[in-house]
């Protein structure tokens, strides 16, 4: 039997304090929370920073550190600081020490670091981009995703607070029930259902859930007032951000929920049994990397004149051609891309858009990407006069369009790209990870 309290889907999303206290009173064996995701894009991994501010992270994390002290159980966070690099683990350690000092609490801290400096043999996963040694060298940060084995090693240090770098979303939850001899399929399945907090229930924003694992499966109970798990909400969560709703690959094997059965045990809790864990022949961990792909400057105009709104695609095509010529004339052959996205027209779907534009105004977002910030800004500055004054035909009086900003151009700095979608095989699960108990 293992009871795990999950405060919310990710540190930074907030949680219901009353429900959290209900969970603490129920005597959990572990409080587990996820700290990250790739879902906000490659910039966070590329820079090695959190998407949330230090202040808001500190506020939420302090509440969990107090809850841990009250519950007398360990607290673990996976993928600390959005991307789980060494820099974001150290950042959260620093915040943790500050909280402990301010609250007059003592706790031992262990860190599990996932950052990689050299990679072994890589095998591409479906949809992976081509990589070579040059692209790997260009990555500013590479992390490997820890699984249950590495989390168990961290839990076995006996630390009160475990701050892990990049882990799979599920490993911080599955590790303890697996170690306790609970049902392996149930451990991974419960972890997948619970990793987004109350997203698997009604009132998904309430966050807090409790997972009870045993030798045949698991039971999930949302703890906030008005939050209910039903067989439908729980089973439907296997769809969420999952390309295959039945199979989930993890280090050391995969989860298969094809035979899982869900039934209500109360008006709010659901019992799940029947998932299978299928061990793999080789032990692999997924790796993620991000590299700088260019520097960006953006510029925006809004168009309200009905004549120009009606002909905005032709206007943009005209500007793109004139601007490209001018860039070559002024700057020579400079490596860059310039794109004009028409908001209110096709900005989200591009060429896949099927509906005719009917808006009374549109925005034109110019995006320039070049190999230096100076080039990107210079190229965007050459776009500026066209977006301000370009006439559809030479016969009409010079028009002027709305610019929301001065200066019109905004530098976005380095732009990062995800470079790896591969697995790396390990003979010893700990060989790519570093575990440390801090004094």
């Amino acid at each position, binding site marked *: 039997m293992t009871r795990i309290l999950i405060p919310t889907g990710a540190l930074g999303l907030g949680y219901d304090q009353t429900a959290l206290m209900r969970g603490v009173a129920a005597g959990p064996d572990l409080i587990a929370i996820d700290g990250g995701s*790739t879902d*906000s894009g490659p910039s966070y991994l590329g820079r090695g920073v959190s998407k949330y501010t230090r202040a808001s992270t500190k506020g939420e994390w302090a509440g969990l550190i107090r809850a841990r002290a009250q519950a007398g159980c360990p607290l673990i966070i996976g993928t600390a600081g959005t991307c789980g690099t060494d820099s974001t683990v150290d950042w959260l350690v620093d915040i943790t020490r500050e909280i402990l000092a301010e609250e007059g609490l003592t706790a031992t801290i262990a860190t599990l670091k996932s950052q990689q400096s050299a990679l072994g043999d890589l095998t591409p996963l*479906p949809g992976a981009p081509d990589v070579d040694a040059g692209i790997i060298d260009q990555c500013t940060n590479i992390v490997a995703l820890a699984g249950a084995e590495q989390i168990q090693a961290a839990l076995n240090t006996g630390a009160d607070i475990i701050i892990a770098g990049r882990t799979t979303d599920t490993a911080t939850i599955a590790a303890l029930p697996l170690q306790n001899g609970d049902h392996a399929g149930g451990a991974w399945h419960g972890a997948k259902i619970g990793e987004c907090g109350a997203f698997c229930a009604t009132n998904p924003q309430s966050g807090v859930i409790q997972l009870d694992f045993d030798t045949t499966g698991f039971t999930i109970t949302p703890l906030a007032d008005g939050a209910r798990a039903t067989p439908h909400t729980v*089973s439907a969560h296997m769809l969420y*951000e999952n*390309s295959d709703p039945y199979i989930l690959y993890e280090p050391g094997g995969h989860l298969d929920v094809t035979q899982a059965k869900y039934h209500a045990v109360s008006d709010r809790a659901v019992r799940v049994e029947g998932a299978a864990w299928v061990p793999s022949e080789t032990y692999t961990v997924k790796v993620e990397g991000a590299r700088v792909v260019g520097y960006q400057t953006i510029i925006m105009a809004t168009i309200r004149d009905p004549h120009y709104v009606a002909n905005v695609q032709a206007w943009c095509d005209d500007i793109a051609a004139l601007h490209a010529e001018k860039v070559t004339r002024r700057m020579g052959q400079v490596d860059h891309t310039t794109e004009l996205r028409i908001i209110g027209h096709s900005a989200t*779907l591009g*060429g896949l858009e099927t509906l005719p534009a009917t808006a009374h105004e549109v925005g034109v977002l110019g*995006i320039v990407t070049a190999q230096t910030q100076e080039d990107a800004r210079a190229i965007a500055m050459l776009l500026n006069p066209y977006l301000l004054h370009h006439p559809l035909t030479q016969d009409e009086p010079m028009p002027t369009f709305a610019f929301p900003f001065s200066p019109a151009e905004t530098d976005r700095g380095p*732009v990062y790209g995800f470079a790896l979608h591969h697995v790396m095989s390990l003979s010893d699960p700990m060989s790519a990870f570093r575990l440390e108990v801090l004094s």
Partner: protein
Amino acid sequence: MTTVGDVTDKVRSKNAGPFWLTVDIFCGDAARFDRVVAGLSTDRVAAAFDVDIATLKRFDIADLYVVKFSLPRPTIQGDIRDRDMHGAGWAPLIAEMALA
């Protein structure tokens, strides 16, 4: 013309990691599930996404009354050509498709 969105509870699209997209069509009940399964062919969805049908995975999940499509992202999440960091915009494309 009856669209997918007209007869279903919700169509949702999302990243499944930086390299995959997934679209979930929540039909709501058996009759509407059957209507979507019969009226939305995989090749029409592949054409709407402008992708090779061989890359498109389809799951007709009768227990949940859900039809799910997954595909490698045509542009990797966050690529300079990517228009949609979270993959949110693919749902209306499917919701607005006519049911045959």
